[in-house]
């Protein structure tokens, strides 16, 4: 019963190689466009965020290209789906850089993958714009010259939430959420800052469910038994809608005040429709109806005309990415990666939420936060945020001292 490797079975390997070489994409055209590669999750719950990033980016890029592009070249982009898996994300990112030969890389919603790609981009010296991952390590402890973030991070959320919560009368808190790094970082950010502003607050308990836990009912019933004044939910994309849904179904939302980052945001409220719970407090980077400025209205209209739906927060990031890339390229004078970075790290642009600048030290976009409370209104089939309070960017930015310490300087 000996298994012998036959000589001819190894014909297969060169055959495979030949097939791979044939599939190698065709050579570039005459006046090549500037290539942007987007690696993101286009499968599963994260798509409620990532589709908007891509779609708004496309609207903005189309507009820029219609006016002749940048530096006489059009901007083209291609996307890859990482299915929320880090190893696929790494492979696809490397494919975009080495095979597609993109000039700029953008993505992803998976924080672990973002950190991995960030290191890769540091080695490859290619600019990387982070569009959705919220880990503060991205521009904080693990930040470097080649990575930029145009989305908020857990430190910023924590500061904003703490400011909002400290103004309310709650003293006894319970913290609950998805049992992964984002959830814990979020909770630590909110709690740490809240305790600093209002030392009398007390944490009476915590409970964490596994990521992707489908049934949250036992967790909520246990929490309501403990009778906290308010509950801070540290949920990510996977459980966001679910948590709101169960809170409504069990009547939890009626009895106990809840705070969830992005509870007030359309990505969470749209799927729930009129079934979403009211009176939930939340923070968000973007609402298409607030601030009610001409710029925001125009942006929302353009998005709606193109896709037939209202823009969610991802759309803001997509728009910001496009504008930052275009303006930084213009300033740089040509598609030179180093010059692009030099221009980008001092860039400010006008946006639907006002002027947004990149902070040079850590390459973090300075975004304002909006805190509101969910409310049913007759105008829309989904709930919206009401009583919105704007927390300006400078009040939420991570302290440069902390970052210096984390980086070991």
């Amino acid at each position, binding site marked *: *019963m*000996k*298994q*012998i*490797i*036959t*000589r*001819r*079975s*190894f014909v*297969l*390997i*060169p055959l*495979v190689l030949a*097939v*791979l*070489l044939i*599939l*190698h*994409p065709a050579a570039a055209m005459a006046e090549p466009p500037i290539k942007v590669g987007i690696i993101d999750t*286009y*499968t599963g719950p994260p798509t409620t965020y990532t589709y908007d990033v891509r779609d708004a980016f496309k609207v903005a890029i189309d507009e820029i290209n219609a006016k002749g592009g940048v530096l006489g070249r059009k901007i083209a982009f291609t996307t*890859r*789906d990482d299915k929320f*898996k*880090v*190893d*696929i994300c*790494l*492979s*696809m990112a*490397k*494919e975009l850089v*080495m*095979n597609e030969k993109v000039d700029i890389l953008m993505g992803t919603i998976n*924080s*672990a993958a973002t*950190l*991995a790609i*960030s*290191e*890769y981009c*540091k080695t490859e010296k290619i600019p990387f714009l982070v569009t959705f991952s919220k*880990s503060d*390590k991205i521009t904080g402890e*693990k930040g470097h010259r080649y990575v930029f973030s145009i989305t908020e991070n857990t430190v910023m959320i924590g500061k904003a939430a703490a400011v909002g919560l400290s103004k309310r009368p709650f003293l006894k808190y319970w913290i609950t959420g998805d*049992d*992964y*790094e984002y959830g*814990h970082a979020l909770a630590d950010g909110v709690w740490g800052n809240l305790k600093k502003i209002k030392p009398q607050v007390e944490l009476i308990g915590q409970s964490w469910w*596994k*990521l992707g836990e489908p049934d949250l009912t036992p967790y909520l019933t246990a929490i309501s038994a403990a009778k906290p004044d308010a509950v801070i939910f540290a949920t990510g994309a996977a459980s966001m809608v679910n948590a709101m849904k169960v809170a409504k179904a069990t009547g939890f939302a009626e009895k106990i005040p809840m705070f969830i980052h992005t509870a007030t945001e359309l990505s969470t409220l749209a799927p729930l429709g009129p079934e979403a719970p009211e009176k939930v407090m939340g923070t968000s980077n973007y609402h298409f109806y607030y601030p009610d400025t001409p710029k925001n209205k125009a942006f929302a209209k353009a998005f709606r005309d193109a896709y037939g739906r209202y823009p969610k927060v991802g759309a803001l990031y997509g728009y910001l990415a496009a504008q930052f890339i275009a303006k930084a390229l213009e300033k740089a004078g040509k598609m030179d990666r180093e010059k692009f970075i030099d221009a980008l790290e001092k860039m400010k642009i006008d946006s639907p939420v006002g002027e947004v600048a990149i902070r040079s030290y850590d390459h973090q976009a300075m975004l304002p936060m909006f805190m509101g409370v969910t409310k049913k209104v007759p105008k829309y089939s989904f709930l919206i945020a009401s009583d919105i309070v704007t927390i300006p960017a400078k009040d939420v930015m991570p302290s440069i001292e902390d970052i210096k310490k984390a980086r070991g300087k």
Partner: protein
Amino acid sequence: MFKRIVQPKWLGSVVAIFIVLLILPPFLPRFFVYVLALIYVTSLLAMSLNLLVGHGGMFQFHHAVFYGVGAYTVALILTKTSLPMWVGFVAGPMAATIVGLFIGWFCVRLTRLYFGMLQISLGSLIWAIVFRWYSFTGGDDGIHGIRMAPFLSSLNNSYYFILVILVISLIILYLVLKSPFGSTLQAIRDNPDRCAAVGINVRRHQLLAIVIATFFAGMAGVLFVVLERSVFPDLLFWVLSLEIFIMCLLGGWFTFAGPILGAAITVALRTFVGIYTEYWTLILGIILILLIFFLPEGVMGYFLEIFKPQAKEAAERRE
């Protein structure tokens, strides 16, 4: 014994292939070098699993755990200590073997499906620990930007290193399979009761096979870190275990080199079809179905059938 093992007929082609693969990097675009290196890493992992599944008949359902342990060990040593890289490279497979022995000791008490289920449960516990222990393992953020010795900093050098380690590992695995131990293992696969009746200590043989297999899985984990410089909890997740299992079936699990083919096909499919469509899992599923109906012995088995009918008959007699 040497003469029996080394067949001059095919030795020539194997060496030729090796030389071709060795000199490829300067002629290939960087991305293809990367994909090949990734295939080598995955092949080693699949081959290590097949020692147990195809040749040992064991339901090793959570093999990825040992891969992940190897990867995390080298990652932790290289990021938390300033020990030289080689220490990490040795520690990785050793740690994987220790965990393998520990889990294996419990699992060999059971048979077939229960062996597999217990392994999944124990393995999932380890995954959960790695996932939650943020301060030590980086939790679900993982560990990134792992340092390597300067000679491994270029992609081509990493490629050479991985290829050489792969080939050495394959030679060892081949020798193991051809040895009396290997024959006993396959006999145990085919009829454990008869072997026990003849006085063979089934459990000890299975444990030894587990030690070898998990050693090489850990080695594959180390090679992964050399190539990607990152570790993350997905490396220990049961989905990966299922994927490697499928690679062995795809390539032909009764053959020696089948898993290499399975790994190559899966990685190539995922990477290249993934460029054109998000639905590459659908395509993989369809290919698997086609394979089941038309190439039931796996791709490697099919080629064996064409070129070596005796081997096919031997395989058929086994069913």
